[in-house]
């Protein structure tokens, strides 16, 4: 078959492809600033942060010879490494002390085993005093008995590789040992419980937002313009107020000597001794976060509800439907898109919150993000923070996928 050609003899297919390519490049150029911006400020830093959750190069970089010579050492032999390994340790540490890297390594290993921090801080002085004429093994053992402890060497061997799953295991309340992976004793388990609590409470908060937000959005969409505008301002005012101010306001209202308890006592509904505990527990987090996230539910719902013509409900009723049937069979299905958008927005915001739970959550109402913040800013264990963050991100993506299966993400709309 003869190919269709354009006037200047080029095959039509090629010509079309060329034209389309040009168009695509133009489109790409148009979005290039945004794309580069997102890549630099979003994708690269996040990937860099997430990679920290497996990065363990500090051990092999600080002690390159020791980690190599430990490869042949068998921890199950229950024997300390040989003189040669201690010599490599001396060489490595001498170098590290010169570059002041030994304390950094101590901090890293202390995450896994308490006591490493001061062992490595002290070793700086010890190494400077050691003599080449004597056995390094004996000198190390004399300097600190931890160098003669199998635990120290097991730890060094376990964390020799450049990449580790140690942070992820710790984030799942587990631990690496020479005999394999073990669960932590019950008194040390915190993270799984926190993950479960974070998800459970975020779901409850989303449900509460929907319950409270739905009628308000309906009023906003159906009241006369004048009243609905006023109502809209009431929704938006707190939205524009600082988060900390709103949270502090809840403290004033909810605390035991606070406004709500005072009113209840004054009304005689509760006794002075029986003041309710409304804050510094899960209830406090639920109340404050529902209030803070409510606009994120109301606004998508409202924008969807406004597009539903009132004539549908009238038509349903004129065909004999009761109020409830008309609402449930005709009105409600049309708002699903808004519910979908509002719910996913609220849920994802809730799951990552930490300021409000920290301030009003007491001990039972804090989230996993509070631990992430602790590891970032206080313990400086960024690897751990990255591991917790990666798990949280994965959880959100999985839930998103499930959500897509059940609700259908193409149905979600913001108006």
């Amino acid at each position: 078959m003869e190919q269709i050609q354009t006037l200047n003899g080029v095959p039509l297919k090629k010509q079309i492809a060329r034209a389309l390519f040009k168009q695509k490049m133009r489109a790409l150029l148009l979005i290039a600033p945004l794309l580069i911006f997102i890549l630099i400020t979003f994708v690269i830093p996040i990937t860099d942060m997430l990679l920290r959750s497996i990065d363990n190069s500090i051990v092999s970089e600080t002690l390159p010879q020791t980690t190599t010579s430990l490869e042949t050492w068998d921890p199950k032999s229950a024997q300390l490494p040989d003189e040669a390994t201690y010599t490599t340790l001396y060489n490595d540490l001498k170098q590290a002390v010169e570059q002041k890297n030994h304390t950094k390594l101590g901090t890293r290993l202390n995450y896994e085993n308490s006591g490493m921090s001061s062992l490595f801080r002290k070793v700086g002085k010890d190494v400077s005093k050691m003599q080449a004429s004597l056995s390094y093994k004996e000198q190390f053992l004399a300097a600190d008995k931890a160098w003669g402890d199998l635990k120290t060497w097991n730890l060094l061997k376990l964390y020799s590789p450049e990449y580790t799953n140690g942070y992820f295991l710790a984030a799942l309340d587990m631990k690496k040992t020479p005999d394999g992976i073990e669960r932590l004793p019950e008194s040390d388990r915190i993270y799984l419980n926190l993950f479960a609590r974070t998800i459970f409470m975020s779901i409850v908060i989303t449900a509460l937002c929907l319950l409270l937000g739905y009628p308000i959005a309906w009023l906003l969409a159906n009241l006369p313009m004048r009243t609905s505008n006023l109502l809209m301002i009431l929704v938006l005012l707190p939205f524009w107020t600082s988060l900390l101010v709103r949270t502090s306001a809840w403290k004033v209202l909810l605390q035991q000597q606070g406004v709500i308890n005072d009113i209840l006592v004054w009304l005689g509904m509760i006794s002075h001794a029986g003041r309710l505990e409304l804050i510094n527990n899960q209830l406090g987090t639920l109340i404050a976060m529902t209030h803070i996230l409510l606009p994120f539910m109301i606004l998508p719902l409202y924008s969807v509800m406004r597009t539903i013509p009132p004539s549908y409900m009238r038509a349903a009723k004129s065909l004999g439907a009761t109020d409830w049937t008309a609402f449930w069979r005709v009105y409600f299905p049309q708002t699903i898109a808004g519910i979908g958008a509002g719910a996913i927005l609220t849920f994802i915001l809730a799951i990552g919150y930490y300021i409000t739970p920290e301030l009003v959550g007491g001990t039972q109402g804090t989230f996993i993000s509070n631990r992430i913040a602790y590891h970032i800013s206080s313990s400086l264990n960024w690897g751990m923070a990255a591991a917790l963050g990666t798990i949280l991100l994965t959880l959100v993506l999985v839930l998103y996928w499930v959500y897509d299966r059940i609700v259908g993400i193409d149905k979600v709309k913001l108006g």
Partner: protein
Amino acid sequence: MKLKPIFAAISIATFSSGLLAADMAKEMTIVSWGGAYSNSQIKAYHEPYMAANPGFKIINDESSNEAVAKLRAMAEAKNITWDLVDVEGPDSQRLCDEGLAMEIDFDKDLAPGTDGSTPTKDFGDSLINKCFIPQIVFSTTFGYRTDVPEWNGKKPEDLCAVFDTTTFPGKRSLEKRPKKNLEWALLCDGVEKEKLYEVLSTPEGVDKALAKLDTIKKDVIWWSAGAETPQRLADKEVVIGSTYNGRLFDVIEEKKQPVAMLWDYQIFDFDGWVVPANLPEDRKARVMDFLKVSTDTQRLADQAKYISYGPARASSQPLVGKHAVLGIEMAPHMPSNPANAKRFLVNNIEWWSNNEDEMNKKFEAWLAK
């Protein structure tokens, strides 16, 4: 001509000072805690220094509570925008270990005491590591309300009143971290001060401390910011609570609330400066010049005019005067005042730098129970 030597002197003076000024940065960013504390530093250190160095400017940043993380991020990005950072002792240890703070040669870089003692001797025990230049001693201690009807006129006299909910019923405010709480719990469980960390280093010791805390757990509201306890005391939300002594001074003397101090077994801590590592030469020169002046005997004593934290130098103690606004004698309000420091602990930075991670895990697990 008679004027000639004077001119010469002036021109030499300008020339040499001009040289110096050219070597030093024209502005520096100082990071501190904000609020009353930053204010006391501005009054006692920054303003006199700026008056003596016209054309030089200090930019104040209030991010000390996230200083450790931010300094690390800056060092990784190789763009250090801070010149001097105010941190607590334990944070300085972490920064020093991580190589994020510069090591200081105390006897060379700091001014000797007015009594002639070397800086090393004058600062004494407050020199907790090679990077930390101490300014003040503060303490974490308890304050209680003096008007609780349920206490029948009794007043808490020692630390263990915190754990005695029969004589002193009511809510307590404690910090949401294991540090300090574990020590206090053990002290009230009959462990001697000298054996404290020996006991805490065993799993049984930690269980013992947590078991003691269990006895008051349902009466505790936990705090994470120093301002929470004073607020709760003022709101009658709690009857007794721990916080920094300066915060309690504020509630008692400035806000005139019916609150009193319980100094028993206060825990001393140091707060001071660290210089970020690898500063450019001109900025480093400026910071070292500022440090030498602002940590001398008189300057440290001056700070106590504005806030009730004790100077870290021994030679500054006799110079502590009256509060600049309230006009009250400040010495009795200092944590280091002998009447207040009959029984005390000093924050054991070495032990906590080893064990904080592990204790935190246990403490969080206990809290969630």
